[in-house]
C-alpha cells in the first residue's frame, strides 16, 4: 500500500477543496439580494423538516462508533 499516495489523494485534496471553496465563495450579500424576490421555502407551512432529529442527541445507547465496513 502506497500510503503517501493515499495521504495525497484523501487528505491533501480534501483540504485543498475547502481552501478553494473559501477563496472563491460568492459574496453572501449578493446571494441574499438575488434571492430576495423568491417565494420562500415553506418554512411556515406544514412540512416536517426536522427529519429524524439529526442534529440532536443521537441514539447510540452509549456507543461511540458509527457502523462501518472495515473488511470484517
Amino acid at each position, binding site marked *: 500500500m502506497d500510503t503517501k499516495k493515499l495521504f495525497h489523494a484523501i487528505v491533501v485534496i*480534501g483540504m485543498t477543496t475547502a481552501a478553494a471553496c473559501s477563496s472563491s465563495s460568492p459574496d453572501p450579500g449578493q446571494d441574499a439580494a438575488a434571492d430576495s424576490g423568491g417565494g420562500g421555502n415553506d418554512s411556515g407551512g406544514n412540512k416536517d423538516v426536522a427529519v429524524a432529529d*439529526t442534529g440532536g442527541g443521537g441514539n447510540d*445507547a452509549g*456507543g*461511540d462508533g458509527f457502523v462501518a465496513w472495515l473488511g470484517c
Partner: protein
Amino acid sequence: MATTPAATGSSPGLAAKAWWHRADANAQSFATVRDDVIDALEPDARAQLASVWQKRAGLELQVGIGFAAIAGGLVEEGVIQPVIELVTGAVRDEVRHAEISASLAARYRGDETIDWPEPVKTMIPAFAPSTGRFRSTLRVIAQCCINETLACAVLEACVAQGKSPLVRAGQQSILSDEIDHARAGWAHLASPFVSADDKRALGPWLRRLLAGKLDALLDEAAPLPGEAYPDHGMLSRETFDEVIHSALNDVVFPGFDAAGIDTTDARAWAKEKS
C-alpha cells in the same frame, strides 16, 4: 425482497456504466460477466463468501444512514458547499454499495436475484456530552476522517490481492466512492466551520473516536471471515492489522497534524494497540 442485479446496477442516471463493466466492458448484463475464480469454488466456500457479502450489504445501508445523520447535523450547524455535496452524495453511494455487495452475494450463491438487506436499527453515536456544531464535527471526524479513510486503505489492500474479476470490480467501484467520502472529512476540518478552539478541543477526543470503532477490531485475534480466500479479496487478520496501523500512522494522524489537531494521545492509543 429479491431483485435482479442488472436492474439496480445499471439504472440510467445513477451511473454512466454499471460497476460490473469494470470486470467486462462488453458484458450485456451482470449475469453474463465471466468469473472463473468464483465459479471454481466449492459450494461450502461459495456459501461462506456469499454470507460475508450479504452481511456487508446490510452494513452499507447502515453506513448510508450514518451519512444522512451527519448531513442533517451539518446543515443545521454549518458546512461549506463541497462537503455537503459529498456527504449527501455518500448517502446514495452507500445504497449503491449495498447493491454491489448483495449482487456479489447472489453470484456466490449462484442466484440470479439478489436478497435486499432486512430492516435493521441503526445507531448514531451521540458523543455525549458534546453538543451542537462540535458534535457535528465529531461525527464527521469519526465517519469520514477515520472510518472512510481507513476503509480506503483496507479496500486498496483487498483489490491488490484479489483475483476474482467481479470482486475486484466491486471493490474498485466502492473504493472510488470511499475516497470522496473520506475527503469530505478533511475538507470540513479545513473549513471555516471548525474553529481554532474546536481544534484544540478535538485532540483529547481522538482516542475516544478511535477506540469507539477500532478497539473491538484490533483486540480480536480470531481469523477474519473468509480470510482463507485471498484470491477473493478477503484479508487475513494479520494483514488487516498491518493495513490499519499503517493507514493510521501515515494518513490519518498526519492528516490531523496538518489540520492543527494534537495527535499525541491518539498516537499513544495506536501504540498500545500494536
